[in-house]
């Protein structure tokens, strides 16, 4: 009998998060000094305004929303990268590196070296990294020559292949994908979907951000739509995708 695990692996209660951004008109120390401290150098830009969300273990959860609605910030909050101002956050599981384009790879280093660095930062041991390396070269279909090349010479599709393969190599408990799959070619997209399904069957939880309602319908169990830092609707995929499509009508 497997140990009873709580149903919701991720739980957010009234989460607020904000960016500290430079105050308008002040973007250098000089301007700040010239205002003799009258202007505040930083202002708070509220991005997430009271998010309530529960994500269950083993589900594929879709997240929709216009550009700038706070999706990526929400993902970073879940990944523990973005500090929260207020609210209760509970994430019961290890989060794999957030998959977003051009993020997480060191452009000056080769593919092989990037696997090592990413692996180390994910907390893998030496032998796990070795396994990860074998998995990546098999799954990404990047040749050994490609992997020896500096990542700055990669195409976006190749970068996706590399970072996706690294992130899914070690059976992550929580996998977060931020609008990246669309870059891959048809063959690789199919492979990604298959791997994601495999991971979900193995007990992983996946959060998928995309603008393709087709992708959400194909892969997700549930979805949510976010607008201006607030969740507008959570529920069945059909319902949420319809809601999302209607925003643009």
């Amino acid at each position, binding site marked *: 009998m497997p140990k009873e695990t709580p149903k919701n692996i991720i739980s957010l209660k009234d989460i607020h998060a904000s960016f500290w951004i430079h105050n308008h008109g002040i973007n250098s120390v000089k301007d700040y000094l010239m205002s003799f401290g009258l202007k505040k150098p930083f202002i708070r830009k509220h991005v997430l305004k009271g998010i309530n969300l529960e994500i269950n273990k083993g589900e594929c959860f879709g997240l929709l929303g216009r550009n700038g609605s706070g999706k990526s910030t929400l993902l970073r909050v879940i990944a523990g990268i973005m500090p929260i101002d207020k609210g209760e956050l509970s994430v019961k599981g290890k*989060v794999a590196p957030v998959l977003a384009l051009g993020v997480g790879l060191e452009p000056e280093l080769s593919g092989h070296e990037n696997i090592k660095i990413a692996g180390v*930062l994910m907390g893998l041991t030496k032998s796990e990294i070795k396994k990860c390396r074998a998995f990546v070269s098999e799954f990404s279909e990047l040749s050994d020559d490609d992997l020896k090349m500096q990542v700055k010479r990669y195409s976006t599709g190749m970068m996706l292949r590399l970072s996706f393969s690294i992130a899914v190599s070690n059976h992550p408990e929580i996998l977060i994908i931020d609008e990246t799959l669309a870059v891959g070619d048809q063959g690789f997209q199919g492979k990604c979907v298959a791997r994601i399904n495999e991971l979900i069957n193995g007990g992983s939880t996946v959060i998928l951000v995309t603008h393709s309602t087709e992708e959400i319908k194909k892969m997700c169990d549930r979805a949510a739509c976010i607008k201006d830092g607030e969740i507008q609707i959570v529920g069945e995929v059909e319902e949420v995708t319809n809601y999302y499509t209607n925003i643009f009508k």
Partner: protein
Amino acid sequence: MRAQIYILGTITAKNIKLKYKNSVLGFFWSLLTPMVYLGIFTFIFSNAFPDIENYSLYAITALVFWTYFSNSSIQIVNSVISSAGILKSVNVPTIIFPITALMAETFNLILSFVPFGLLMFYFGFSPGLEVLLIIPAVLSFMLFTFGFSIIICALNVFYRDVGILWGTLMPALFYFTPIAYSYEVIPISYQWIVKFNPLFHYVELFRSILYYNEMPSSELILITTVLSLTFFGLGLLIYKRLERGFISNF
């Protein structure tokens, strides 16, 4: 603990690799700058300061550590911003990057002891057992360099001007520190100003060990230890305070 050492070791190795990537001469580049300075100084100043016995040795004993300080601080200041891509995707403590930047530069310093050591012998360096004191002295200087640089590093995430400003001020600090000259050439009534420069005390420390071959005075040891611990503590404190806002400003 072992896992952390493994992480730090791997990233340090990456930094060392990156430093010499795309360059044919690799490590030797890091020797070139101090060598050029040494050549210039010996050429210009050895006649200007005839009181200093064995001027080349006098200059090199400080120059090596200035080079370490300036390289480390540049690397540390940029370490966090240049890892923004990684920090936006993986939840790891950001302090890893300044630490490993320092480690890579320290590795470089130790490596450069070999050619510089040979050069010093050529200039007439004859060390006694006191030379071993260089180990605690370097450790203390590491703490200072780290503490000082992470303050600028943290501020630089918010305002890139800070890094640029620091790059511009560095040559001024170089000449303000008695590296190419002895602080005794400064009129006595102004000498107290020099003592406000923390680097002055470290230069004195390294010189007393490597140039004068003597045990540093207990006053000097006390001053540098206090400076190192203060800057290290202050640096960590400020860095921790500012770290929360990093993600907003990458």
